[in-house]
């Protein structure tokens, strides 16, 4: 079986803070990481490799520094890494991003394409299903688990709000994986050294199969009208008092707001 995993380098948004004076994002010192949902997707692929001997390719689209997550993927055990990078891809929204990735994926033979459900910098959950559409493949999003029958049929467990669905799909297909699906393995120590000896294939527009008008800023139907820090309302009263007094203050407030009689 051949598996391709789409991964993305993202700022660790849990480390981002807002400057309380200017209201702007403090990005200094915020580490870049492999997106958590993608990493679980990669782990799922590596487990299939361990069990069934799959060949695993990772692909990322991003600036030169995104090379780092491809090296990390090598150290975790993938067989091939492709870095999709070109100025023509710049300024892409989710649709244009999905076109570029689909363009690259047309050049790769696979049975299963895995993406993370969503990236923590955008939280859109769109690129996976959009790639599936461009490639005319069935999709299963919010994937928690997957079993392969060894021939061509997958049984999948898809998370929904109040439970789950069991679905059956034949290869080739696209899945988007939740980070709760598994715990990704650590990089192996020998693997980290070897990761830098291995070749990362760098692909640009000329290496992929896509209409140029669908790419980058030109290919993006959406644009940012404005961006702003979340406006917080002014802070309310603050008391530093003993427990009894504090409880009294809370009860008074509840009566004031007619929550208590």
């Amino acid at each position, binding site marked *: 079986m051949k598996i391709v995993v789409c991964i993305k380098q993202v700022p660790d948004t*849990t480390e981002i803070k807002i400057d309380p004076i200017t209201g702007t994002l403090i990005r200094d010192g915020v580490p870049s990481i492999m997106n958590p949902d993608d990493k679980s997707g990669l782990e799922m692929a590596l487990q299939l490799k361990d069990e069934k001997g799959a060949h695993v390719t990772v692909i990322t689209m991003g600036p030169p520094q995104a090379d780092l997550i491809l090296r990390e993927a090598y150290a975790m055990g993938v067989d091939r890494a492709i870095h999709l990078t070109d100025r023509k891809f710049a300024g892409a929204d989710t*649709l244009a991003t999905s076109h570029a990735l689909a363009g690259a994926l047309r050049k790769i033979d696979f049975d299963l394409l895995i993406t993370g459900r969503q990236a923590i910098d955008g939280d859109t959950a*769109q*690129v996976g299903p*959009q790639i599936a559409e461009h490639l005319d493949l069935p999709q299963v999003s919010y994937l928690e688990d997957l079993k392969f029958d060894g021939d061509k049929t997958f049984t999948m467990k898809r998370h929904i709000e109040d*439970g789950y669905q069991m679905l059956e799909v034949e290869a080739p297909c696209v899945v988007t994986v939740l980070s709760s699906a598994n715990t990704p393995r650590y990089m192996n120590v020998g693997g980290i050294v070897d990761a830098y000896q291995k070749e990362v294939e760098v692909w640009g527009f000329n290496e992929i199969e896509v209409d140029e008008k669908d790419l980058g800023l030109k290919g993006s139907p959406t644009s940012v009208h404005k961006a702003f820090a*979340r406006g917080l309302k002014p*802070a309310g009263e603050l008391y530093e008092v003993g427990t009894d007094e504090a409880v009294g203050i809370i009860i008074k*407030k509840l009566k004031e707001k007619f929550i208590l009689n």
Partner: protein
Amino acid sequence: MNLEDYKGIYVFIEQREGIIQNVALELLGQARKLADELNDKVYAMLLGHQIADQAQSLIARGADEVIVVDAPELKEYTTEPYTQAICQIINERKPESLFIGATTLGRDLGPRVSARVGTGLTADCTKIEVGENGEMLMTRPAFGGNLMATIVCKNHRPQMGTVRPGVLFAMDADESRTGAIVNYEVKFNAAKFRVKLLKTVKEDNNLIDITEARILVSGGRGIGNKEGFEAMDALANTLNAEVSASRAMVDAGYIGHDRQVGQTGKTVRPDLYFAFGISGAIQHVAGMEDSDLIIAVNKDKYAPIFQVSDLGIVGDAKQIIKKLTERLEKQN
């Protein structure tokens, strides 16, 4: 694409087992406001099997026309039949804008539809307004809730957005409203149905929807352990409230994901939100800051939760919960 040809605000009505989901009514309520501002109409797309009897209720909730697609292929949601149905409606009727609830269903359907018709989709909107030129201004959180971005879809139609449940307001049912109900036939291409639904399993029938609660007693790291949550339960009982939590407590396994408030959980806006031992990371605040009254208790007086609370108490959350419960029990 001639933008002038595109008219109407279309709302996807999510139903599960024939039950219309709240988020659909919230979308209808918002669509009604936008349509009144634009002098346009609201179209509700009701897809499913043997669901037509619910169409009238959607008119009462703000629709001018209900497009009913009743087909066995749509009995339970799978991506392809629903995508085909919505895309046929888009291609034939040319909506100006189209909104879908940002549920696990909507977030599966939305991107597939947007890619098939080649238009933009703004995910997880928390606000939709009309811009100067009648365009939709769709605002959503980005960078894990650290930043808000207003997105536009200038030259493509329909302007599509998914909207988080619990952030928009449904209108009260107005039975005097009138509107049309249209049965719409979809020509399915069954050759493309390649995902087979084997079964849908409900894991817990006792799940409650914290977005419906008027009072939430919410706990974070400062609550510490199981005993802390039991104390919160007792307090919630005296107030007829529900218990919710920050992500840390869900990850630690003290409480289910269905009760998680925040960016990766639910957006709530109860009359009263108690934040006990919750530091107030932006990811949490994003899910509760619109609550009417926020009372926070935290032992760190610099905790960011105090920047959004109406009443802040610097102190031990566990002790205060215990004492407050005793006082309220006495009152009752």
